[in-house]
């Protein structure tokens, strides 16, 4: 069917403005929500089956119900707009095109949580989107949708945008909280979880942009209706950022459950592989999730068609499956070097490690160095096992999941593409003979 609940109406004039957004039914969900009880909204979100769209997929309603409510202590909602997971660009797209859906979602969610102040933490690089949001928030204030006694409901709410300054780790929710407090983005040891002790030691919920935006259609249609979209525990629609060697890169809103094959090859979505090439591999959920070769991304190990759902993509565990993650869908064609791509990702994680835990700080550095040895033609076969060993010593031994995010891609690349590592070793210093090493991107004719 292909229903769109978030990025619909983008062709309507002035959808970026309050007036244009209202003309398409904007802020009617807020009106409805303010006439409900906060607990009722939480209940609808629970019924909807909505799962966090930031990457971890944790049920949103459940997360909301964990928020501590000590009397006299303010609660905060913080929107995670730090979007830095390589391959992910849906939040930027949504905020730029339709800023008011996020603002409406923020007000409804804050009302449900009993938060009178909320913040949107946007990564500093998206400074122009920061200004788009500022403008939209100002429009909302001027129309009485923010501030004191919103729409006569007696609910007061202030919403602010806060800009970061370049640090992938600030997307991790406790690092984001530290950063919002004006400090370095070092993740905190949990527990206590933010729901109990978050920003300024107050109970805090951190949610992704898309999660908060989805609260708007859920409020409008009701949790049960929303849950009818999708398959099983993967309910609703999901924004997928599609990039790499495909004909039609971009942001697509899918109903969860679309077959991966259809998503890649149909003209409605990615439109197949560029330049008539064959597909080699896919990273389905942002750079942190395991890479899968073509046969395993299209079909599960049991031979069933793989679907774009949390469960289907994870089918087979990490042996043969992967994760939906943030929905950063990176497609690689037959000429791509898996080893070099892995080196690039590992270099990224090494660069972004905050340095608090030795397995992550040192391990990412060692993995980057060893991968570089492969590319330089100095690696030996035992280096493949060494890489395997190091990644296994990071996973599960760090303060935050960046360690795993760095380890999983290494494990998956070795698991599924070991022969390519061996090819690098065998070719030794004669790297030009390795057909994957020099990929020529002819940007002159692109």
């Amino acid at each position, binding site marked *: 069917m292909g229903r769109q609940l978030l990025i619909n109406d983008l062709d309507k004039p002035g959808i970026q403005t309050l007036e244009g957004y209202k003309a398409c039914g904007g802020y009617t969900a807020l009106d409805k929500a303010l006439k409900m009880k906060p607990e009722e909204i939480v209940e609808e979100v629970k019924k909807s089956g909505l799962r966090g769209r930031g990457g971890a997929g944790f049920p949103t309603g459940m997360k909301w119900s964990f928020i501590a409510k000590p009397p006299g202590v303010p609660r905060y909602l913080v929107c995670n707009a730090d979007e830095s997971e390589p391959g992910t660009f849906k939040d930027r797209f949504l905020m730029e095109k339709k800023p008011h859906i996020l603002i409406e979602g923020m007000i409804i969610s804050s009302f449900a949580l009993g938060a009178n102040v909320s913040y949107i933490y946007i990564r500093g*690089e998206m400074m122009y989107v920061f200004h788009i949001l500022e403008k939209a928030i100002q429009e909302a*204030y001027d129309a009485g949708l923010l501030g004191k006694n919103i729409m006569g409901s007696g609910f007061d709410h202030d919403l602010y945008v*806060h800009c970061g*300054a*370049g640090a992938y780790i600030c997307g991790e929710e406790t690092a984001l909280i530290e950063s919002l407090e004006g400090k370095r983005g070092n993740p905190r040891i949990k527990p206590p979880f933010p729901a109990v002790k978050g920003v300024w030691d107050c109970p805090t919920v951190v949610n992704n942009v898309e999660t908060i935006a989805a609260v708007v259609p859920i409020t409008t249609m009701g949790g049960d209706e929303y849950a009818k979209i999708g398959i099983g525990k993967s309910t609703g629609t999901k924004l997928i950022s599609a990039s790499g060697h495909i004909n039609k890169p971009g942001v697509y809103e899918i109903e969860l459950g679309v077959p991966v094959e259809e998503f890649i090859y149909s003209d409605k979505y990615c439109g197949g592989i560029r330049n008539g090439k064959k597909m080699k591999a896919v990273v389905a959920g942002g750079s942190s999730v395991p890479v899968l070769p073509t046969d395993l991304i299209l079909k599960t190990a049991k031979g069933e068609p793989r679907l774009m759902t949390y469960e289907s993509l994870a089918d087979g565990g990490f042996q043969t499956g992967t994760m939906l993650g943030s929905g950063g869908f990176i497609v690689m064609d037959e000429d791509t070097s898996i080893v070099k791509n892995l080196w*690039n990702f590992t270099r990224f994680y090494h660069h972004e490690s905050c340095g608090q835990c030795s397995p992550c700080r040192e391990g990412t550095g060692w993995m980057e160095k060893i991968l570089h040895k492969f590319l330089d033609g100095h690696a030996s076969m035992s280096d493949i096992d060494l890489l395997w060993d190091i990644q296994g010593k990071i996973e599960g031994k760090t303060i935050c999941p960046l360690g795993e995010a760095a380890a999983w891609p290494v494990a998956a690349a070795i698991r599924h593409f070991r022969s390519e590592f061996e090819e690098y070793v065998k070719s030794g210093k004669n790297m030009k003979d390795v057909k994957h090493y020099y990929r020529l*991107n002819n940007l002159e004719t692109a």
Partner: protein
Amino acid sequence: MSTSKNIQFSPEALELCQKIMRRYPQGKHKSAILPILHIAQAESNGWLSPEVMDYVAGILRIQPIEVYEVASFYSMFNLKPVGKCVIEVCRTGPCWLLGAEDLVRFIEKKLGIKEGQTTPDGMFTLKTVECLASCGTAPMMQIGETYHENLTFDKCGKILDEYKGKGELVTHWKKEKVKNHSDIKQ
């Protein structure tokens, strides 16, 4: 500690800093440090000298060390002088798949500098950065707040010529938007 006596932000910039500090609860105004450091870069030729950081510490009424430790953590803050335009080319996975590496080589050749360096005329600094959430329009680069997407050599060359023609300072938080901050009311 260095002296910040010679530093003075414009009245508009100072007013903007005060506005932003009011967005956080009483006593929590240190939270404003990242936005204020962005403003500071716009006011100080695109980079943060120790003197500028001390001055920011004064605005925030915190210790200079608290500013240094934050400024050194975040990649958008330049702690050394930079050219008027900092070219930030995305070098991460999806952009690399579509030619980011070649693009960096192209810019290096065109400007006669290496990654990390500034042109002798002080116009450009070339930096590589991590994924800017623009992977669907790769390869791409950012200059100031502007995303330049779907780049080819030709397109990239023309864009750089345009910036050179204007010869203006370009920062993430634009200088004009520091001067006129009517979008920030609350």
